[in-house]
C-alpha cells in the first residue's frame, strides 16, 4: 500500500523530467497523459484498499490516507487525467501554430507535472504543516503555468495570483501555527500535535480562543486558495490567462485541495467550537455565491465567466459544509466531484474555442455549434451541467445541499436558490450566444476535430451524465465513510 500511495503523486511528477529529453510537443503531452493515467489508476487502487482495510497511516503521520483523502485524491487525479489528455492536443496545436516556443513547451510540461504531483501529494499527508508546504508549493508550480504565455496580461495575472495567493496562504500558515499552539494542552510530541488524526482524536481538549482564531484564519487563508469571496480577486485573472488545460487544473483541482484543508480544519475545530465553524463557512460561502453570480452577468472574457462560476460553486460547497449534518457534507463532497468534472470539461472546451477563434472575448465568438459541432454541443451541454440542470450530476448535488439547507433554516435555503437562479441567467446567456448564431466574421481555423482532443470532453460529460442519474455503490460508500471520518 505504501508503494501505491507513493506512486499516486510520483507518476505524474515523473513528467517533470520530460523536458530534459528531446521530446517535442506531442511527446511531452503523451508523457503527461501517461503520468496522469498512472496516477489515477493508483488512486483508484488506493481507494479500494482503504475501503477494504481502513485508514492507512505511516511515517508518524506524514503519510495518512483515509476515506476523505482517497475521495479527494480520486477527484483530483481524475481532473489531472482529463487535463493531461487535453494537454496533448493543446501542446500540439500551439507548436504547429507557433503559439509557444520550445522553452515554453518544456516549462509547461515541467510546471504541469509538478503542479499535478504536488497537489496529489498534499492530499496524502496527515501532517498539517506538510500539507501547507505542499499546497504552497503547488501554488508556485501553477504560477509558472499562469504566466506561461509571456504576454503582459499573463504576467500580470501570474503576479496577482502569486502575491494574493501567497498572502492568503501565509494567513493559513498563521492558522496552522495557532492550531499547533491550541494543541499545547495535549501531552503529545511536537510532530504529533500537528498531525490530523491526533488532533481529531483530542479535539475536545484544544484551547478555545486559539482554536477560534486558527479556524477563522484557516478559512481566510485556505479560502484564498479556494477562491472564496472576498479573497477571490486573483481567480478570474489567473484562470483566464492560463493555458486552458492548466485553467482546468486550477479551477477543478487546486481549489479542491484548498477545500480539503478547510474540511480538515473544520473537523478538528467543530467539537470544541460548535456552530461557530458552520457560521463562518456560511458567511464566506454566501458571499462567494453572491459575488460569483453577480459578476457572471457581465459579458466579456468567457474564461473569466467560467472562473467566476468556480467562485460560485466553491461558495456552494462552503455553504453545504456550513449547513452541516450528514446531508450537507454528502452534498458538499458530491458537488466537489461533479464540479471538478464539469469545470474541467468546460475549460477544455474553452481551450478548443480559443484555439479556433483566437480570442477570449465572448462577444467575438459566435456560431460554435455550426463551425465545430462537437465543441459547440459540449459547450452548451457543459454549461447546462455546470448550472445544475438535470439530468447532470450537479443537479443532484445541489438538490442535496438545498435539502440540507431546509433542514436548518429555510430562508437561507431560499437565498441559495435565488442566487443559483441569478447565476443561471448570467452564465447561460453568454454561452448560448456563443454557441448559436452566425459564425463570427473572424474566420475560425477550419480544422477537423481531433479525436484526442475530443476524448476528455466526451468522457467528462458522460461521467457527469452518469453521476446525475446513478451514484455507484462504491462511490456512495466512499463518501459515507468520508463523512464518518470527519464527524
Amino acid at each position, binding site marked *: 500500500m505504501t508503494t501505491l500511495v507513493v506512486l499516486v503523486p510520483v507518476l505524474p511528477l515523473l513528467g517533470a523530467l520530460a523536458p530534459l529529453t528531446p521530446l517535442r510537443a506531442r511527446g511531452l503531452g503523451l508523457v503527461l497523459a501517461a503520468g496522469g493515467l498512472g496516477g489515477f489508476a493508483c488512486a483508484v487502487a488506493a481507494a479500494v484498499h482503504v475501503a477494504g482495510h481502513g485508514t492507512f497511516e505511516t511515517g508518524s503521520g506524514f503519510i495518512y490516507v483515509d476515506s476523505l483523502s482517497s475521495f479527494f485524491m480520486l477527484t483530483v487525479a481524475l481532473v489531472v487525467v482529463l487535463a493531461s489528455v487535453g494537454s496533448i492536443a493543446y501542446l500540439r496545436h500551439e507548436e504547429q501554430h507557433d503559439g509557444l516556443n520550445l522553452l515554453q513547451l518544456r516549462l509547461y510540461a515541467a510546471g504541469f507535472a509538478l503542479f499535478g504531483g504536488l497537489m496529489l501529494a498534499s492530499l496524502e499527508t496527515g501532517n498539517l504543516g506538510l500539507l501547507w*508546504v505542499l499546497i504552497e*508549493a503547488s501554488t508556485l508550480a501553477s504560477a509558472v503555468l499562469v504566466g506561461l504565455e509571456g504576454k503582459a496580461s499573463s504576467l*500580470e495575472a501570474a503576479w496577482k495570483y*502569486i502575491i494574493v495567493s501567497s498572502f492568503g496562504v501565509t494567513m493559513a500558515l498563521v492558522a496552522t*501555527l495557532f492550531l499547533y499552539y491550541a494543541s*499545547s494542552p495535549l501531552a503529545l510530541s*511536537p510532530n504529533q500535535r500537528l498531525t490530523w488524526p491526533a488532533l481529531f482524536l483530542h479535539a475536545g481538549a484544544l484551547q478555545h480562543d486559539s482554536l477560534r482564531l486558527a479556524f477563522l484564519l484557516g478559512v481566510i487563508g485556505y479560502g484564498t486558495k479556494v477562491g472564496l469571496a472576498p479573497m477571490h480577486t486573483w481567480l478570474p485573472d489567473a484562470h483566464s490567462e492560463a493555458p486552458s488545460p492548466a485553467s482546468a487544473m486550477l479551477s477543478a483541482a487546486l481549489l479542491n485541495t484548498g477545500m480539503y484543508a478547510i474540511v480538515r480544519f473544520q473537523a478538528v475545530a467543530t467539537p470544541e467550537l460548535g456552530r461557530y465553524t458552520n457560521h463562518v463557512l456560511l458567511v464566506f460561502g454566501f458571499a462567494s455565491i453572491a459575488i460569483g453570480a453577480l459578476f457572471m452577468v457581465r459579458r466579456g472574457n468567457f474564461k473569466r465567466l467560467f472562473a467566476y462560476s468556480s467562485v460560485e460553486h466553491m461558495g456552494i460547497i462552503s455553504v453545504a459544509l456550513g449547513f452541516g449534518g450528514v446531508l450537507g457534507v454528502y452534498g458538499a463532497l458530491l458537488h466537489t466531484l461533479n464540479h471538478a468534472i464539469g469545470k474541467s470539461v468546460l475549460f477544455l472546451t474553452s481551450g478548443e474555442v480559443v484555439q479556433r477563434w483566437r480570442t477570449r472575448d465572448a462577444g467575438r465568438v459566435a456560431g460554435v455549434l455550426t463551425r465545430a459541432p462537437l465543441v459547440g454541443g459540449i459547450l452548451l451541454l457543459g454549461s447546462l451541467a455546470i448550472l445544475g440542470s438535470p439530468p447532470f450530476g450537479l443537479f443532484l448535488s445541489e438538490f442535496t445541499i438545498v435539502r440540507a439547507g431546509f433542514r436548518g433554516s429555510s430562508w437561507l435555503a431560499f437565498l441559495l436558490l435565488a442566487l443559483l437562479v441569478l447565476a443561471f441567467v448570467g452564465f447561460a446567456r453568454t454561452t448560448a450566444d456563443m454557441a448559436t448564431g452566425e459564425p463570427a466574421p473572424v474566420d475560425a481555423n477550419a480544422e477537423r476535430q481531433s479525436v484526442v482532443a475530443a476524448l476528455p470532453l466526451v468522457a467528462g460529460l458522460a461521467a457527469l451524465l452518469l453521476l446525475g442519474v446513478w451514484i455507484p455503490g462504491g462511490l456512495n460508500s466512499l463518501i459515507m465513510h468520508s463523512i464518518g471520518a470527519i464527524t
Partner: protein
Amino acid sequence: MSLPLAAESLSAASTSGALLDLSAVVMLLAAFACLGSKLFDRYVAYYALQSIVLSFAAGVVAFALHQPDLWALAVLTFLIKGVAIPFATRRFLLDRLELHRDVAISTGLSTSLIIGAFLTAFAYLAIRPHTLPHALVASAVVPLSTAIILLGGLTMVVRRHTIAQLIGWLILENGVFLGAITLTATFPFIVEAGIFLDLVAAVLIMITFVSGLAHRLATATAPELRELRH
C-alpha cells in the same frame, strides 16, 4: 516535556526575554521605516535589517530553550533572508531595471504611516495576554509580530509597484516567522525547512515575473498593473 522550565526562561524580566522584546521592537520599526520610505534601496535595506534582527532573535530563543533546530533556522534566516534575498533583489531587479524612486503609491506616506500606527494599536489591543495562557515567551513579542504582519499587509495593499508588494510580503513572512519561533518554539523542523524552501522558490519566481513584467511593459518606472481590470 521541558516546557515549564522554558516558560520562565523567556519571561519579560529575563535577559533573553528583554533581548527578544528589543529585537521585536526594532523589527517593527524597520517595518515602519519601510512603509515610510520611497526609495527602492531603502526598502531592501530595511528588509535586510529586519531579517538580520530576526535571525538574532531566533538565536536568542535557541539559546534560551536549548533547541538545536532553532540555531539552524537562525543561520538559515540570516543567510537567506538577511543576505541572499536582498542581494538577489538588488542585483537582478533594482540594478538591472535601474529603479530608484517609487512613485506608485496609493495613499500619501503620512497617511500610510498613520494607518500603520492604527494597525499596530489594533494588534496590541486584539492580542491580549490572557488569550495566550501558555505563553512561552516574552509577552510583547506576539502583539509585535502581529503588528509586523499587519504592516506587511498594509505595504502590500498601499503600494502598487510589484517590488514594493514583494517586500511587503517578505516583511509579512518575517512577522509570521517571529511569531512562530517565539510562540511555538518546538515547531517541527522539517516543516520549518519546508516553509523556507517555499519562501525561496516564491521569491525566485516573483523576481522572474517582475523582470518579465518590466521587460514587457518597457516603462522606465514601475510596472503598474493596469492591464486586467474589473
